């Protein structure tokens, strides 16, 4: 009989048990606890924000749990949960419900916009060119101007070759990414790769390896490799404001490492955590920063990158139909 004992081997499965995850009840308290736990186990900036402004996620739980009760409405719950996430001061953290999006946009709402559509139209005119979402033209003092409003488009190498070839005779180039709130990091890399002739270290990447607030992988180097197509060899000015966020923030980080690049305008909005998605028992979607990114000095860019020259739009210039930041960049190029 002993020789047949091995037949019981598959039944060992029954003793090792099921691999399962606790599901919170779809109640007001259940959704609150589920949200707090998702962020507690996955959010990547707890340690950093504890240092910067004293964020204590356990204390946040204690404070907000008192505001949740079974009789509150869906809208009231949404407001409490949204306010709880706003404690993270992170533009990549949201709740998406059918009726609203909870967000904290203080990273740009509390600052001057430093951008005007009216002024932009005066510089672009109507006869500008468009390639893969990039608006470009030559300004009247022979300065190339590219308006890059988003990195949501996947730039083709042919698109970028056309743009750079067209502007090649210019004395310098302005890349205006004000109000660019991100998109694909790969697109930011592709554009930045046109401004270096050699591999350059531009920063570091990390990811979480466990549920603890300090469970991270080692920092992996981010290298920017020169594009194989046409590369720009003259001065470049990147224009920024507080709405430059996420992949656009990464673009500024890359460009600051490239030769002949100067950043002009306001500090960027930040957003240095690659976001992941999750969900609550009631079906609301969650977005949160999951993978932190750092600059080449291993400093977080979560709260933005300072420009080389801080310039604000002036009201006087606005009344004259001049964009102070573009004009400053033109002076730098033509100096």
């Amino acid at each position, binding site marked *: 009989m002993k020789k047949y004992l091995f037949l019981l081997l*598959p039944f*060992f499965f029954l003793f090792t048990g099921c*691999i399962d995850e606790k599901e919170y009840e779809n109640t007001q308290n259940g959704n609150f606890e589920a949200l707090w736990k998702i962020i507690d186990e996955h959010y990547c900036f707890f340690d950093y924000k504890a240092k910067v402004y004293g964020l204590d996620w356990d204390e946040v739980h204690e404070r907000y749990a008192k505001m949740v009760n079974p009789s509150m409405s869906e809208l009231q719950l949404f407001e409490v949960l949204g306010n709880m996430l706003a404690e993270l001061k992170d533009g990549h953290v949201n709740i998406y419900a059918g009726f609203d999006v909870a967000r904290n946009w203080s990273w740009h709402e509390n600052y001057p916009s430093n951008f005007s559509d009216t002024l932009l139209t005066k510089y672009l005119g109507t006869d500008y060119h468009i390639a893969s979402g990039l608006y470009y033209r030559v300004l009247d003092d022979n300065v190339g101007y590219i308006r890059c409003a988003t990195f949501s488009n996947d730039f083709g190498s042919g698109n970028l070759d056309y743009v750079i070839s067209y502007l090649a005779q210019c004395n310098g180039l302005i890349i205006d990414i004000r109000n660019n709130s991100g998109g694909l990091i790969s697109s930011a890399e592709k554009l930045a790769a046109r401004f270096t002739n050699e591999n350059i270290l531009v920063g570091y990447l990390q990811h979480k*390896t466990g549920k603890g607030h300090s469970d991270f992988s080692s920092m992996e180097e981010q290298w920017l490799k020169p594009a194989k197509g046409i590369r720009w060899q003259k001065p470049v000015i990147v224009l920024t404001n507080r709405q430059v966020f996420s992949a656009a923030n990464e673009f500024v980080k890359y460009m600051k490492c490239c030769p002949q690049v100067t950043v002009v305008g306001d500090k960027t909005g930040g957003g240095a955590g690659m976001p992941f*998605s999750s969900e609550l*028992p009631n079906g609301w979607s969650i977005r949160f920063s999951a*993978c932190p990114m750092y600059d080449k000095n291993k400093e977080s860019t979560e709260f933005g990158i300072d420009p080389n020259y801080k310039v604000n739009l002036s009201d006087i210039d606005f009344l004259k139909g001049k964009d102070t930041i573009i004009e400053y960049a033109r002076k730098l190029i033509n100096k």
Partner: protein
Amino acid sequence: MTMNHKIFLTFLFLLPFSVLTTAAQDDKIITNAKMIGIGNTNILDTYLSPEKYNGTEFRYISHTLREKRNSHLYREIIQQGNISYANNRSENGGEMAGTYNFQYGWHWQFISDEKFTVGVGGNIDANLGFIYNTRNSNNPAQARAYLNITPVIEAAYRFHIKNGLHTLRYEISAPILGVMFSPNYGQSYYEIFSKGNYDHNVVPTWVGNAPSLRQMLTFDFSLWKTTFRIGYLGDYQQAKVNNLKNHIYTNAIVFGVVKKFSLIKLRP
């Protein structure tokens, strides 16, 4: 026709039978069942969501046994593919999952009589698949790739009802060792595939961190000179690696056709 001619012709006539009799020593018997299945599936992958998704799975299974007459050693070859669609409990999000499974193994029939046979063996068990979450942005999908060494036990009981031969068959398998691809806990696919930053992405598995099991109970019956197979399939794949939990539990009804071939070597 002389007596010698008659003896010669009789010899020629009987020759093939003698060869067949000799060849029968190592006849190959191939039993192949092609089945389709439909059932309920329960999907959890904490890389995508802490919520479990429930839905319907469709499956195709090709199950082959290659035996030799008068030998206890035989081979099992299984190919199966499944596709499923499942919803979260609030019914506002979906997950699609699909897996291709290939198994190849050698088995030993250690109980063998006319009515009852029991065999054991080990399979190489390769799996390739995906789970796609329809609402996630930077983590929309999870690749599933794992290779296992999987012990298998199977038992068959043959019996007659009226003049028909029927077979009741049960097979259970559970992997004991393997390797599995997995991103690390909070690692993005961008980091793995665009940057080439690998971090424990090929993980050893064993019964403790990937206790999985497949079982199938089938009943073969003959109708219109064809053998049909109907049965129940339970497939419970689960793992906890890199602090990520996943499971796909499937309970399905399977139905198909069984064909039995005998390959006979004819020597000149």
